[in-house]
Structures are given as structure tokens and as C-alpha cells.
């Protein structure tokens, strides 16, 4: 491999291009996704030019668009929907909860419903209270609705295919902060940190410090937090000689804890990090599962890190102080391990 790796947004864009090229059943629906605009975050660049019949730029009608996707899925097609800001997926809740996911099973037989809703989420970009949230947790635990999160470890092409092969609706949450970051490839992040996958499906990426066998703290975090946690990991090692490992799952729900069990058993402490605010979170769910599966084997309860439980302010310094940052992770793990 020569030159720097692709940016995440390039990887995602390429993944979509590949998908469209090989599968005529794939559609993209969303606001302002047509060229030359190519979507608010440029993820759909070039698609409408190459595949004009299957790339439909829409009015501002999030709810109906997901309904349309449901109709296409019923006809055996494979629609992908882009919600411009994940915060607006609130407007699609009914179609996802009461129609698309329900249809898989509520008619007494399995009705295949392949559809993916893509949602740019997250803060640290100064977009303010209604354009910066992490709504993931509100969609957990809906039968037949699958949740994924974009990551710099997981190739988008593989991921999108996997999601569309489920025969059930899925949401892909894409932390906006990722778009400009580089993908990690080849098992090596830098001279200090490598990565591999814990399962044959390559669902769980695991980043580790080279030449360190121990693990003071196993951190579980979705893709958007990877860089912040990696930075904290490096610093915890260099400044505190604390060894962390990071697991980044592609699929958040249903969550497959099995491949993590050996690591969990060996780790002194377990920490789950999310950018969303606490309360009914994915992290709480993971924590409860870890407690159940490792009862009596953990040194301390799972450390749950979330952003401050408040509205996300627009002003940069206020926003930074509200959201989980590298320093949040660093301080919490240091304190927990030193306690």
C-alpha cells in the first residue's frame, strides 16, 4: 500500500458506488443527494450521475422517504436512505418501528425487508443542539431492527452488503467526525498501536498496544469514538503505563458479546464509552450483559462514560466541555485504575 489510506467518507462513497454497480436492486433516497451537491456531507458524490434512475433526491420529507423505502423493500428492492442529520431520524420513527421492522414478522411469516437508513450523527462540529446528537439508543431493542455504526476499521462496502443481506431493516449511524479521518488498514495504526478482529465475521475490531500482553482496561466504544479512545490509550500508556485495549464493534444491536468474553475475562476493568448522554443507552445494555456474563470475575463495575447529560451547545468551548473527549476517557480510566 502506498500513500495514506482512504478517508472514511471516500471509503463510504466507494462502498456505495460498488454496491450500485453490482446490485440493481439498490437505491439511494435522500435530501440533496444528487450531483453536483452530492449530499450535505458529500457521501453520495457521483452516484446520481452514474445511476440516475436509482438515486432519488427528495423533498424534505424524512418520514415519507423511509416509508417509500419500505415499499421498495416489499418489492424485493434494496433501498438505502440518507437522513441529512441523524437528529431528524425522529421523523422516521413510526415507519421504522411500526412498519419496516414489524413487517418482517407481524404477518405471521418472514417478509424480507432489506433497507438501510444512514444517519450522520454526533457533535464536535459546532452545529448546535438539534444537529449534533447521537440518537442510537432510542432505536435499541426493536425486534428486527439492526443497528450499526461506521468505523475507521470496517470497510463500508463489506458493511453495507452485510446490512442489506440481513433481510431486515438496519440503521447505519455515521459519526460526522469520522468522515475526514483515515481508514485503518493492514493491522497497524502507528508504531505503538496495532489492530485485528476478534471474530471471523470481522464484526469486532480490536486495537492493542504492540508487545503488551496485560490489559488494565478493556474499552468498548462505537466507531465515532475510536480516535478519541486511541489517543487516550496512547497517553495512558506513555504517561501512566496503563495498558488499554479498544474494541470497536460494527454492529451495536443485536450485540454479540461472545467474541469479547476471553478479553473481558482477562481484563482488569471494562469501560464502555459513548458520545450520547446517559440513560437507556447502548452502554448500559452492554454493561448489564457484561455483569451478567462475568459475574464475580470483574474487579469493578463496568465504567460507563457518556457526555454530560445536557443539551449540546453550539459554542465550541461549551460543546467541547459537554461531549466526551480524549481527556474524558483518559481521566476516567486513570482514576478508575488508580483507585
Amino acid at each position, binding site marked *: 500500500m502506498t500513500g495514506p489510506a482512504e478517508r472514511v467518507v471516500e471509503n463510504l462513497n466507494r462502498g456505495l458506488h460498488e454496491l450500485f454497480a453490482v446490485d440493481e436492486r439498490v437505491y439511494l433516497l435522500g435530501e440533496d443527494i444528487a450531483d453536483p451537491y452530492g449530499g450535505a456531507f458529500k457521501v453520495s458524490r457521483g452516484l446520481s450521475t452514474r445511476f440516475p434512475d436509482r438515486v432519488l433526491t*427528495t423533498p424534505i420529507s424524512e*418520514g*415519507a422517504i423511509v*416509508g417509500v423505502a419500505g415499499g421498495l423493500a416489499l*418489492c424485493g428492492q434494496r433501498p438505502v436512505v440518507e437522513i441529512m442529520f441523524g437528529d431528524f431520524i425522529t421523523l422516521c420513527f413510526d415507519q421504522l418501528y411500526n412498519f419496516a421492522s414489524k413487517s418482517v414478522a407481524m404477518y405471521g411469516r418472514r417478509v424480507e425487508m432489506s433497507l438501510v437508513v444512514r444517519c450522520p450523527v454526533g457533535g464536535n462540529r459546532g452545529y448546535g443542539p438539534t444537529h449534533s446528537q447521537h440518537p442510537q439508543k432510542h432505536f435499541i431493542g426493536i425486534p428486527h431492527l439492526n443497528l450499526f455504526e461506521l468505523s475507521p476499521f470496517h470497510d463500508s462496502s463489506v458493511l453495507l452488503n452485510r446490512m442489506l443481506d440481513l433481510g431486515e431493516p438496519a440503521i447505519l449511524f455515521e459519526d460526522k467526525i469520522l468522515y475526514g479521518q483515515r481508514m485503518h488498514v493492514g493491522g497497524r495504526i502507528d508504531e505503538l498501536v496495532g489492530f485485528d478482529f476478534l471474530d471471523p465475521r470481522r464484526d469486532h475490531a480490536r486495537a492493542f498496544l504492540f508487545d503488551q500482553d496485560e490489559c488494565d482496561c478493556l474499552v468498548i466504544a462505537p466507531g465515532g469514538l475510536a480516535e478519541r479512545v486511541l489517543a487516550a490509550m496512547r497517553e495512558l500508556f506513555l504517561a501512566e503505563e496503563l495498558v488499554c485495549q479498544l474494541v470497536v464493534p460494527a454492529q451495536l444491536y443485536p450485540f454479540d458479546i461472545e467474541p469479547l468474553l476471553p478479553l473481558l475475562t482477562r481484563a482488569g476493568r471494562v469501560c464502555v464509552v459513548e458520545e450520547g448522554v446517559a440513560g437507556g443507552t447502548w452502554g448500559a445494555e452492554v454493561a448489564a450483559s457484561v455483569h451478567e456474563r462475568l459475574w464475580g470475575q470483574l474487579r469493578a463495575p463496568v465504567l460507563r462514560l457518556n457526555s454530560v447529560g445536557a443539551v449540546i451547545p453550539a459554542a465550541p468551548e461549551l460543546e467541547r466541555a459537554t461531549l466526551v473527549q480524549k481527556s474524558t476517557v483518559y481521566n476516567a480510566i486513570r482514576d478508575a485504575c488508580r483507585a
Partner: protein
Amino acid sequence: MSRALTEPAPGTSQLAERDLERLLLIRHFETALLRLFAEGKLNGTTHTCLGQEYIPVALNALLRVDDFVLSNHRGHGHYLARFADPEGLLAEIMGREGAVCSGVGGSQHIYREGYLSTGVQGQNVPVGVGVALRLRQLGSGQLAAVFIGDGTWGEGAVYEALNLAQLWQVPLLLIVENNHIAQSTPLDAHMAGDIAGRARAFGVRYHRVAGIDINRIRVELAEVVAGVRRTPAPAVVEFDTVRIGAHSKGDDTRDAETVAAARARDWYTHYERAFPARFALADAAARRFVAELVVRVERRPPVGRRP
């Protein structure tokens, strides 16, 4: 018998045997449901289409077998007009073996090829646009037929979908069964303006059907439906109709006068008056058929019972 009762009432012409049978099947099927409810043999909710049966029966002749019908909460008639399967539907509603959706969906959530119903108002219109979008691409002249009531125009989803349908020129036939009431709320308390205006606002073709004569309705609508297929383009067809019974089970709180006015427009009475002898025969046959059907289905074990 007076002349008025021996001659066809205004707006009722001779029905094909099959149409009369279907009409009466739906009527007696749903009357039986109400009886079963009263006897405590059914749970949940059931929305009968008493008074509106002629709508799906009239439309069915205009639909192709490969069209996709998206029905709503008041869907028994839509189903029975399209499929000769009263047994599967009754079993579904009663939760007995042989249920078309294995007892999972119940009255409001039915699916089989080319047919689907849902219980949440407004949902089916955008879904219908998605189906129609696909059908447009197939270029096969198929259409998506979506049923909604007047009250469902309260949902924003309907407007979002209508806008998309017209922008994308998809073959969507939006059938509005305007029975002038939504559950307990009369039309003028839930709708400002009217349905014609709503279609017009989106530049969507609109046709209003006032009568109950099935043959005439088909003539009236033939070109509208053909246009949806041919152009393709969406159309809104509004039926000015009446709900004879309660919204669900026995929850009718309308005053006697209102109900009487609705009953006066019942196709049942009109056809009965128009063709008394023939009607009586068919009516008795449908009654008998449904009575036997109920007995047969009731004897079956509940779905999901493990022996």
C-alpha cells in the same frame, strides 16, 4: 308491493352474480364478527365496513391480479373483494388454525402477495408510493392501490407521499373512503377544506364518486384507473360513502338521526328493493355460507396451541 320497491332504486342497476355474492359475503362476514364480539369470542378491536362494501367490490374489477393493494384498519372488505378466502381471514381474526397470517397480524395486519394492511393511519400512503415507484420502473402497467379514510388526511404522511407521487409520476391510486367520520369525530371537526382541494394542491388528478351503483362506478372510473397505469401518474378517487355501523365493535355514539341518514344510503337496502327476489336468494345463501364458515372455523384449535 309498491312500484317504488319493485323497480330499481335510482342508481342501482343489475349486478353480476359474483358482485352480489361478494357484497353479501362481506356484509354477513362482518355481521358475524360483531356477533362473535358480543358473545365474547373475539378480542381486541374490529373495524367493520358495513355500508362501504360496494367500494372494494366495484374497484376489484378495475384492478389486475398483479396490482398491489395497501389496505388500512378497515380492511376486511378490501381483502374479501380481492381474495376468495373468507376462511383464512376469519381464522386470522378468531386466532384459529388456517389463519392467513398465522394469527400474528389479526384484523388489522394482513399480508399476502400483492396485498398488505396496516393499523397505523397514514403509514400505507408513503409505502404505496415506494411500491408504485418500483412498478413504474417495471413498466408493466401495474399500480399500487392505497385505501385511506377521510380522517387519515389528518396525518402529515399523506401529504408528504402525495407530493412524492406526483413529483415522481408513479402509478398510485389513492382511494379515499370518505364516510364523513373518523372514529367519533365528524368530518367538519377534523378536516378544513376538502379532499378535492388537497388533490388539486399537488396537481394530482381527482375523481369523486357519489353513487353506489357498482356498474356505473366502474364505468366512471375505468378511464381514471387506465390513466394511472398508462401515463403513469397518481390519482385520488374519493368515494362519498357512509359508515352504517360503529367505528369498532359497539362504540357508536352518533345520534339516531345521523345513523338513520347513513342507513338510508345503505346499498343493501337499495339493492334489496331493486331486485327483491334475486336479492333474497343470494342473501340467504350468503348468510348460510357465513354461518357454516363460523361454525367450521370455531371448531379449529387456536393458533399456537401446543398439544
